[in-house]
């Protein structure tokens, strides 16, 4: 028995649009089976994972807070993925961005510096992420080193750098030896009464709009898409491949770094180990779930944020481990890729081998 793939002549845009939704449905089904295998009620899990985060008031705010970093990182990654470049180190760029952006608030702690520290920190966060993403990009352009492995290795380096700083030079002297920095004097203002919704969430829609504009309305965005779909055509058209690599890594690194600093200034208000619950990796799933389209990724980020909050709730309400969320995200990514293939090809099961 084998599968036979027959290319579909023209693919209806509706099918392309609905394929991630179908993938989500299949992934939920598989997730339900896993939950049942673990001896819990799939219906109860469905309620906690997908219904409560959307209906409870506090959870709706939390949804936006979680979706914001995911969306910002994913939009950046989509530039790389569209150009067929595999930056899988956004987690590291997120962390280094948070580190670079925290220099000012830590250095100015206890001084009378004004509100300008906030935008300055955000800018430094973006620059830090850019600088860190530049390493795999330069290594690829100059020496032909695979960006997949270098960007991933640098995640470990970033993680250890953060660990070193908060346990060593940046540790709060009055922090009872906890591995954390001082609490920042400047944080992003809250935009809803009595909630945790911070101004950082307003950045995400701006990033989406800007990305949409660049991708569809500028020569640069066109170049990225051509480079991804047909590197030869891009070369003949005169697009400089090396500059494309550098530019897409700068965009994705900068956005990951910005997301890192927004997370620190908006939510955590200090540096400590584990400032990212794997946002940089989760954003990869978000990007594909959104089919690398800016608006699609808004949908993707909200869906994944729902499962992240659902996963945290399920841990308390149903004693389901957090790893179940990761399993679900892995399954979901696989379903999205499979659905994509089924949109492009008609899949037939044929007897006999080849």
């Amino acid at each position: 028995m084998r599968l036979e793939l027959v290319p579909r002549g023209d693919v209806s845009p509706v099918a392309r649009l609905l394929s991630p939704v179908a993938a989500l449905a299949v992934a939920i089904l598989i997730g339900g089976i896993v939950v049942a295998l673990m001896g819990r009620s799939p219906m109860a899990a469905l309620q906690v994972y997908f219904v409560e985060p959307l209906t409870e008031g506090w959870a709706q705010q939390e949804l936006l807070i979680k979706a914001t970093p995911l969306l910002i990182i994913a939009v950046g990654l989509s530039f790389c993925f569209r150009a067929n470049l595999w930056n899988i180190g956004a987690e590291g760029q997120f962390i280094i961005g948070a580190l670079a952006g925290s220099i000012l608030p830590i250095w100015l702690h206890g001084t009378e510096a004004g509100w300008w520290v906030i935008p300055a920190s955000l800018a430094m966060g973006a620059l830090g992420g850019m600088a860190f993403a530049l390493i795999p990009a330069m290594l690829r352009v100059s020496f032909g080193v695979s960006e997949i492995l270098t960007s991933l290795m640098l995640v470990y380096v970033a993680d250890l750098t953060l660990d070193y700083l908060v346990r060593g030079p940046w540790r709060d002297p009055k922090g009872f030896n906890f591995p954390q920095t001082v609490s920042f004097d400047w944080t992003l203002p809250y935009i809803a009464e009595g909630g945790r919704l911070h101004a950082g969430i307003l950045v995400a829609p701006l990033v989406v709009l800007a990305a949409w504009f660049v991708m569809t309305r500028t020569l640069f965005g066109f170049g990225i898409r051509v480079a991804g779909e047909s590197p030869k055509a891009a070369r003949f058209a005169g697009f400089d491949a090396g500059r494309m690599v550098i530019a897409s890594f700068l965009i994705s690194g900068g956005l990951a770094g910005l997301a890192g600093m927004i997370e620190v200034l908006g939510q955590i208000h200090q540096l400590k180990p584990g400032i990212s619950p794997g946002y940089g990796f989760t954003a990869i799933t978000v990007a594909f779930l959104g089919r690398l389209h800016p608006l699609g990724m808004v949908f993707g980020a909200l869906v994944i944020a729902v499962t992240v909050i659902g996963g945290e709730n399920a841990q308390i309400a149903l004693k389901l481990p957090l790893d179940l969320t990761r399993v679900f995200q892995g399954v979901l990514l696989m379903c999205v890729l499979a659905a994509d293939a089924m949109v492009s090809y008609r899949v037939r099961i044929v007897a006999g081998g080849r």
Partner: protein
Amino acid sequence: MGIWEAVLITVITAATPLLIAGMGELVVEKSGVLNLGIEGMMAVGAACGFAVAILTGSTILGILAAVGAGIALSAVFAFLVLGLAANQVASGLALTILGLGLSGLVGAGFVGTNREAVPAIFIPGLTTLPGGALLFGQNPFVYASLAIAFGTLWFLSRSRAGLTLRSVGESHVSAHSLGLKVLKVRLMAILFGGACAGLAGAYLSLVYTPFWSPGMTAGRGWIALALVVFASWRPLRLLFGAYLFGGATVLQLHAQAASIGFPSQLLSAFPYVATILALVVMSAGRRSATAPGSLGTPFVPDR
């Protein structure tokens, strides 16, 4: 046992999982497929191997479970990239995310459980000779890893099936037009890679530590991937690279124990930085492309 012998043995201990997993991936990539999911398959192998070994009390069954888990996960990957011609990089990442999550689900019940490490071989009269512990007193996994390495070397360079596999990886269009079964060859290669990753995971939880903890693979799957590039897709160089890397790991552990004044995080970061540097040196010194020609590109046979 002399000091050098002891050092060499620890180097081999650190290198063995990299050698096993790396050799598996080398075969996969030689067939033209890039499987980035090693880290995930290794993690599941470590968790399943440990869980089954504890539940049944049998090391052999634990190892079989780990290998089986690796094969099962790689079969899912094969379904995506061969059956549906999905993007290999994204599918491999999905496999890693899934594998790390699954290992947590399987292993959660076994955190804090300890188990005797699989003992090293002892042959009276031989192991006690000078240098005997190095040659005749290693862990069974070490001999298995060497068997896999030299078996792979022979298979790829001397056997007809190995030639077929290489030609499929070099140009799947030509191989297909010669009547070779491209997808079948790739399926076999992917399953072999999965088995190796599972076995490497079992080594980690049954010999190296020997317990299970979340995230215990600590990027070894990724380092194994880097080793394949470092080795320019050649089995003997991979063997050499794995031991070189094992040596670097041991060096770092000793430096950490001796607390020579460096922050421990800097030393922990050393293997990852060393990997990047090794990749740069290898890639910069390379005149022509040595990667298999069809590496990473999906193949859809036309009828």
